[in-house]
């Protein structure tokens, strides 16, 4: 923003008294504009500073209090006395009304400060506690412990640079996708520690960055409510457990908006007395920022807590469709995934496979595992680089140990076998997904054990001459689509990455609905694409493609066939 524009805004602001005695602050660097003025809070006039970024009025102004203001020690007054009155997400600004944006911001800030003075929003301290704690901390630890409602013992694994707070060394190993030995080697120091959980409703005024940190007495006073909830035995145990010259404690402060704010304190006590013990007053304490990397904090909730993370899913086929499914499942919080594929990554796949060209020549299943481990903490991926039949023969896969089987093979012969194994013998839900040539569409089919409707139903036309034709197909029957890129050898059905990912989206939604129990019936979902290229190549569409998407959705539960040898004799539900 230019100075002359700022002057216009200033004139507009002068038409009322939302910012009194306003004036431009001279000599501000760059294109930033600063305006000083006074606002009234419950009859008091206090001085504030408005700072407008170069992209103002497409961003909100910053509002600062003057140093030493009697309002500076309140919730939402952050470092350098900046007043936090609105998060930047979830708002839209009309840049044609800059003065109105400023008025709105001032009004919001005044409410925050007035509430703070009255004590009406002190509960908010707990929500923002980690921000304040960050200002005063000069070191940090990484937390992997899922916070519970009770205080408990934990361990700290550290080296000169990094510290992990965890229940066990195994948790660190899983998180880092390393062997336990490797973790011990990398983080040779193991310390006992504890997380002290404060009671719900505890209000703590955070330490100020511009003042010396708390003394032991102050810390003890502040966290006393947590100590009060401990039994004598626990008290002794937690205070004695790091009966050494130094140690780290972590405190969990329940947030009014849910969850906890975590903050740490390290201490040094040359006499070996814990700061909370009788003679611990002479210990030196330091604030430590707690970086939140525990599963309960970072894993997606998916609307049902972290229920997905405990489910076990078998994914057969990690080609274009399976690759997207694997990624979306992990992103949705499904952490235990076994991937089976006997194929290797090949050049032909590059532009439609989620792994691109990065793993060329390597087995698809273990490539997928490595990629998911690289991207997602807590992902627990097992890769089996053989065919599913081989994996079963070798005893590596038992269908009944999974909550859901997913097939993205695109090979109906194997899938008809898989279908029978899952729904008939192992009694486990199974989900299939496949794409059709040249962008005409894709399908996802969920089959549930004991309920009519399975993958074999699609190959169980009442008309015997259609026994081998997929009833859900968009391509007319008896047409050959394989395209050989290099003479003999592998055939590739022509379809693109977008087709694979659209199909994977349908599948992932069905998978999650099945895992959460939201979908207890079988279902056939199809998406219809553009048939122009397909028709141009003189292929013929099925009648099913020619009906509307509404009609397809309408009949999603009606795919069962009475002629199906697998589920045909089951009662209708």
């Amino acid at each position, binding site marked *: 923003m230019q100075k002359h524009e700022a002057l216009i805004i200033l004139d507009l602001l002068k038409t009322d008294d939302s910012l009194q005695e306003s004036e431009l602050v001279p000599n501000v660097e760059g294109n930033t504009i600063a305006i000083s003025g006074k606002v009234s809070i419950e009859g008091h006039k206090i001085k504030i500073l408005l700072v407008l970024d170069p992209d103002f009025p497409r961003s909100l102004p910053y509002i600062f209090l003057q140093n030493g203001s009697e309002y500076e020690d309140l919730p939402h007054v952050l470092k350098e006395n900046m007043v936090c009155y609105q998060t930047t997400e979830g708002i839209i600004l009309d840049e044609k009304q800059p003065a109105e944006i400023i008025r709105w911001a001032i009004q919001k800030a005044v409410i925050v400060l007035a509430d703070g003075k009255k004590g009406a929003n002190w509960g908010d301290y707990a929500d923002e506690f980690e921000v304040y704690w960050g200002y005063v901390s000069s070191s940090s630890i990484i937390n992997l412990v899922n916070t519970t409602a009770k205080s408990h013992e934990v361990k700290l694994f550290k080296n000169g640079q990094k510290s992990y707070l965890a229940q066990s060394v195994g948790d660190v190993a899983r998180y880092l996708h390393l062997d336990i030995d490797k973790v011990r080697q990398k983080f040779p120091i193991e310390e006992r520690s504890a997380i002290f959980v404060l009671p719900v409703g505890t209000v703590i005024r955070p330490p100020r960055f511009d003042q010396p940190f708390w003394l032991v007495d102050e810390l003890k006073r502040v966290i006393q409510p947590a100590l009060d909830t401990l039994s004598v035995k626990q008290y002794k145990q937690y205070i004695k457990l790091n009966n050494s010259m130094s140690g780290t404690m972590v405190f969990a402060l329940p947030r009014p908006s849910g969850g906890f704010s975590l903050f740490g304190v390290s201490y040094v006590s040359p006499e070996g007395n814990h700061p909370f013990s009788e003679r611990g007053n002479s210990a030196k304490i330091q604030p430590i920022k707690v970086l939140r990397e525990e599963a309960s904090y970072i894993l997606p909730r998916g609307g049902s807590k972290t229920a997905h993370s405990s489910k076990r899913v078998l994914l057969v086929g990690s080609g274009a469709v399976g690759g997207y499914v694997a990624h979306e499942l992990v992103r949705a919080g499904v952490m235990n995934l076994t991937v089976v594929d006997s194929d290797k990554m090949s050049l032909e796949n590059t532009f439609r496979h989620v792994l691109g060209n990065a793993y060329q020549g390597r087995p698809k299943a273990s490539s997928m595992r490595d990629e998911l481990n690289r991207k997602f903490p807590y992902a627990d991926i097992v890769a089996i680089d053989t065919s599913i039949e081989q994996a079963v023969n070798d005893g590596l896969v038992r269908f009944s140990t999974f909550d859901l089987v997913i097939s993205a093979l695109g090979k109906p012969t194997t899938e008809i076998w898989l279908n029978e194994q899952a729904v008939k013998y192992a009694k486990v839900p199974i989900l299939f997904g496949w794409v059709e040539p040249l962008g005409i569409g894709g399908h996802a089919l969920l089959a549930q054990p004991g309920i009519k409707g399975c993958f074999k139903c699609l190959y169980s036309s009442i008309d015997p001459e259609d026994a081998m034709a997929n009833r859900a197909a968009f391509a007319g029957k008896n047409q050959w689509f394989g395209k050989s890129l290099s003479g003999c050898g592998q055939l590739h*059905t022509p379809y693109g990455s977008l087709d694979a990912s659209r199909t994977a989206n349908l599948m992932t939604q069905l998978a999650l609905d099945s895992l959460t129990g939201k979908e207890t019936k079988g279902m056939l979902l199809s998406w219809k694409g553009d048939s122009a290229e397909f028709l141009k190549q003189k292929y013929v569409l099925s009648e099913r493609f020619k009906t509307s998407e509404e009609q397809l959705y309408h009949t999603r539960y009606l795919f069962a066939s009475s002629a199906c040898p697998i589920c045909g004799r089951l009662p209708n539900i």
Partner: protein
Amino acid sequence: MANVQKQFDQYHNQIKLRQEETILAEKRDIIRKKLKENLPKVFEDHDEENLVPEFCDQGSYEMGTGIKPLDGEYDIDQGVYFPTSKDNGTYAKDPVLLKERVHEALEGHTKDVCIRRPCVTVFYQKDGERVFHVDLAIYSDSSSNTDNTDYLAMGKRNSGDDYREWQRSNPTVLKDTFFRRFSNDEPARKQFRRVIRYMKRWKDLNFSSDGNNAPRGIGLTISAHEGFMPKYSDPITYKPDDLEALLGLVNYMVNSFFSITRNENGNLITVRRLTAYLPVEPNTDIYARMSDSQMQSFEDKLKNLKTALEKATSEVDTVEACKILASDKVLGDCFPIPTKEATAVVTKSAAVASSSNAG
């Protein structure tokens, strides 16, 4: 329950009127040419402004619901649109006058051209018998009217003034209205057309074509528009079940008959009626011209059809089911009856087939 869809498919192929198969299209083109050639002279003779008409196909021919006529008398509907206002053009007062001009332009083209109430009809004869005819509906074009609507010239030569009128008409919108339901649903649209054709053939088998004996084809089309529901033997592959769809429509029609009581010469009489209101202007009831006794016969025959279709539906044996459908007053002998041997053949399914699945 026997599956007779194959036979329905064959039957449909038999009765369906294909545009390219007929000589009607050819005759229609000759008439168009004749009108273009002769009309300027006719108008000049009458000291009237020369009007150049535009043509447009209409009726079942355009809608794709035409069937081959039983008695061999094919017909085709042709719209002829003149740029003349129904309010202040030369023919505003008397639409029949414009029909006279058309008649005059075609005179001598065949022996038989006559002015009927809704159209000018050109009959073609072979060995003294009428073999087919072209109905020309004469319009005042929407572009010449302030309300941007087409008007149909109604009335014949001996009509009184009251029967000579320009009637609001919307034949092109009619097709859109009938098919809007199926705009994205080709399997249903195709079955809709087939079922209309079955009904029309049933009508030809059961009613004589003179007067208002028979329900008009457009009436049956309206009934189908109201009562047709697509039916499939497999809801996933959309394999049609025309027998169920036809039975569904017949049921709808039978159930739609209602009783009205009216006073006729002092006597209260109760009669049965069915209506078929045009879903576009002029929104008239197409069945209104049928007499009470014609209506009664319509209902009786529909009930017979319903009974026959129900019997065919419950028949296990394909041959027997087809025999029922092929009887005179049901769908007629064009309906194929397979041999016992043919229906006994079990199709051996292939061991290897192509698949369009990929993953």
